[in-house]
């Protein structure tokens, strides 16, 4: 009889413990706050099925993004080169890492990343997901110059992180994969869709005649013809997220996409950056060679350099470009600046 009671008790306890596991803690799902302009015009963002957005994952990712703990000497974080005030880039042509060594590429601004449908990140498309993108800078010797083994050890021994990882991922065993998953979750929340032009598109404000003329130049194939690579009012991303050689150089010191694919036809091609938030993201181009927007416009107007891989969308190359008048340039610049979104850089949810 006693044996029977013990047996039943053990079985009951086992069932109870199973039941506790089933009813156990789950991170809180948190869907992206998709702007109306996006849901009305473009397809849904890319959220990996193995890294759904959660309140706890985003909070952890944000803490990690701003935390110097990812760098070898504790002096830099992701945010050091991706500052909210600069639409998550910085204000130097290229960025210096923890040892004061500058890299060769301009830090890319970070926003609307979940709408990068081809999931190729970086100027050269090297990183094939946002999660994978976040792996590399930690160990890059001219960036955070750390190594993941040390970073994981520091995180694991930290008074807060093990619990934050448990809340985000139901385990307090920290890995680099979980670390970059959390960072990617935070980065996907960096959504910018409240520029003057966005509000114009929603019928909530009007553009000046100069901005409207700038839009016309942007869209006209016989003027700026910017829209084939940088989108249009029906594509609020203002980029095609594709790779082009936009005539910066006749010969290449940086092969860009060609380095990644190994295809010489891709040499000199770099990702089209979004034209949102240009007011905050100078200097421009993959190497930050242009300090001002005027220099960028002058490049397309008179400064094109021919090469074998220059995009066929580039026009009048023998004359250096599309030959805009000074007034056209000023109007185009006014329109481009209407795509900047001050509420994005001041959003308290995106600050340290």
């Amino acid at each position: 009889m006693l044996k029977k009671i013990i047996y039943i008790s053990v079985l009951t306890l086992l069932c109870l413990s199973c039941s506790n596991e089933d009813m156990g803690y789950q991170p809180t799902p948190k869907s992206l706050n998709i702007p109306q302009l996006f849901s009305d015009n473009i397809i849904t963002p890319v959220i990996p099925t193995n890294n759904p957005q959660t309140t706890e994952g985003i909070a952890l990712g944000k803490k990690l993004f701003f935390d110097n703990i990812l760098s070898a000497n504790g002096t830099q974080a992701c945010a050091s080169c991706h500052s909210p005030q600069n639409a998550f880039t910085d204000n130097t042509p290229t960025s210096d890492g923890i040892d004061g060594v500058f890299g060769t590429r301009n830090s890319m601004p970070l926003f609307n990343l979940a709408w990068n449908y081809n999931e190729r990140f970086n100027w050269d498309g090297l990183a094939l997901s946002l999660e994978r993108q976040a792996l590399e800078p930690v160990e890059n010797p001219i960036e955070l110059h750390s190594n993941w083994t040390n970073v994981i050890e520091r995180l694991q021994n930290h008074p807060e992180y093990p619990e934050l990882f448990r809340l985000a991922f139901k385990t307090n065993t920290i890995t680099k994969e979980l670390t970059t998953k959390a960072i990617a979750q935070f980065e996907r929340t960096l959504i910018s869709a409240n520029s003057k032009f966005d509000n114009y598109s929603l019928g909530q404000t009007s553009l000046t005649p100069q901005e409207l003329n700038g839009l016309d130049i942007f869209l006209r194939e016989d003027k700026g013809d910017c829209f084939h690579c940088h989108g249009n009012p029906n594509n609020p991303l203002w980029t095609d997220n594709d790779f082009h050689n936009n005539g910066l150089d006749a010969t290449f010191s940086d092969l860009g996409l060609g380095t990644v694919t190994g295809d010489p036809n891709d040499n000199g091609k770099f990702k089209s950056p979004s034209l949102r938030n240009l007011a905050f993201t100078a200097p421009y181009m993959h190497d930050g060679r242009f300090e001002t927007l005027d220099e960028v416009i002058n490049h397309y107007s008179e400064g094109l350099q021919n090469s074998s891989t220059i995009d066929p969308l580039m026009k009048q190359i023998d004359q250096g470009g599309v030959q805009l008048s000074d007034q056209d340039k000023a109007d185009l610049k006014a329109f481009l600046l209407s795509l900047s979104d001050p509420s994005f850089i001041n959003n308290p949810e995106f600050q340290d």
Partner: protein
Amino acid sequence: MKNLFPFLILAVSLMTCSEDNDDNLNPEISTTFTFTHNWDGAIVSNTNFNAIQYTNANGELLSIERLRYVISDIKFTSNNNEMTELDVYNLVDVTNANNLSFTPETTIPAGSYTVSFTFGLDNEDNSENYLDLNSESFNVPDMLGGGYHYMQFDGKFINSSATEQGFNYHAIRATDNPGMNPTFPQDTFFTVNLGIIEITNDINIEIEMNIAEWFKNPNLWDLNVLNQMLMPNSLAQIMMYENGQNVFSLGDVIQ
């Protein structure tokens, strides 16, 4: 009476079989359209892109760097002129080898059909808001009538100065008076008739595009004259429309 029983069962069985046979005569058929591309018979895929290797009818050497186009409104017209129209569209992206095969969700009964589709989008469809085409930045600016490109075909050619030069053979709805109130001289989408196809089972229909035809007939295309900024050029758009009539043909049919 007892003797009748087996006959009754047999009769019922035969009737049932007969019904099945009727069903089999009109099964719902799945159609798949496969898009292939050639230059006067030589197969073209994205692996052939970027090299100046094709000669057009006007004698210009050229390369293909980007090619994507929309087909829509696939129609099946039976012998008694009953038409099944599939209100669908497909962006064929040769550059990235996307959507080279397209299977509409709607199935059709077996039968003999004249099969056709629209190159581009008719004016009604072209005024819709397609989220996937917007995401591909395939739009045409509003001052040029809005809507979408029918085709984006970019490449380079050797011009009369023996220099490589870009061309953008972009087909859209022909437009005059660009601006707030553009006008439309004529429609430039067109119907491609693939002829009569006997459809008996799930079927794969190959649609071939001879890219060289865009430069050939009836308008001998001179890339030295017509190379870029062709979207606001309604005469060039109408020439593309005319040359497009002979671009597509029926390839292999497998069922």
